[in-house]
């Protein structure tokens, strides 16, 4: 597996906070879970209406999803398993095999 399979189970989730309260709550949990923010580039940009895409490691997925369900924040899973997406999208594996 590429990258020693380190991204297995990681997800990329899209959230759009509908209110400033939701945005504040998201920023707090992003900092707690130390998410990898794909967009916007900085947590400081997250506000009402901002499209936020977060890469969350497998270890933090359950906590984040539970939080989102608790707070009723709408979300969409963009990438269900980052490792699979990585391996499906490239020919690296083929190249490695050839080498």
């Amino acid at each position, binding site marked *: 597996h*590429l*990258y020693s399979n380190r*991204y297995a189970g990681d997800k*990329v989730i*899209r959230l759009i906070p509908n209110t400033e309260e939701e945005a504040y709550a998201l920023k707090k949990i992003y900092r707690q879970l130390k998410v*990898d*923010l*794909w*967009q*916007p*580039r*900085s947590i*400081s*940009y997250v506000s009402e209406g901002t*499209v936020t*895409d977060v*890469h969350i490691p497998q270890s933090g997925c359950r906590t984040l999803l539970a939080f989102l369900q608790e707070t009723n924040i709408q979300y969409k899973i*963009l*990438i269900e398993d*980052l490792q699979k*997406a*990585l391996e*499906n*999208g*490239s*020919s*690296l594996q083929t*190249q490695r095999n050839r080498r």
Partner: protein
Amino acid sequence: SLSAYNYEVYHSLEEIQNWMYHLNKTHSSLIHMFSIGKSYEGRPLFVLKLGRRSRAYKKAVWIDCGMHAREWIGPAFCQWFVKEALLTYKSDPTMRKMLNYLHFYVMPVFNVDGYHFSWTNDRFWRKTRSRNSMFGCRGVDANRNWKVKWCDVGASMHPCDDTYCGPFPESEPEVKAVAKFLRKHRKHIKAYLSFHAYAQILLYPYSYKRATIPNFNCVESAAHKAVNALQSVYGVRYRHGPASSTLYVSSGSSMDWAYKNGIPYTFAFELRDTGHFGFLLPEMLIRPTCTETMLAVKNITMHLLKKCP
């Protein structure tokens, strides 16, 4: 050979550098490779100068890709651009005009250390790889390290953040090397283009403040026509506009710095997609992404040549 290199897969840093060496030897009438310095980890910072050699004074366009390590479609586009330039110079009147009247300085991988790290360790690394003596975190956001309202809105002072602006402007040797080159050649560099991902937006200054640039009319017109041309290929929509209102306010960007330092037409592309694949744009989408972007770049270039002072 040019045609044997596969432009529809992502290449490692070593492969890209070998490709540059090869082109420098085999296409010396149109390409000259040179180094503008060394990265933090000691890697050469290669630039390709494209264009027909001429004794006459020629203006130039600067193109850089891969400022953020994980945005692999950027370097893929830079390679595509060079390939198209060489392959179509004789057959495409537009390309011939571009290379006859202008030089293109193409830096396929700006952040060489970060790019190599994203290949070998962390696919989602963004920053450079410089060390910080106080913290365990490495790297600076190369697009927050320029001396234009440095470390203000949209940048972070914390070394562990992905938008860390650095200990001081141009602290990163990669940024310093490019800045030095652009300062030295600013009188004949007419346009600056930087390629990033993802969002499908074409941006122009300002990023660091909400204000209209003095040459708004020509810049907006060039951007508008470019996104229309881009969309005409596969129907993919790009937004366009000043970075501060189209995206968000952020300080210390290369686009703003280049503009402030006298390069009149500066743009930043955020290439495909809008989040379905994000940074993991599949290799099968390299061709359509690069084809449409190529048209946008040719459009901008010709617009600037013909319509803008």
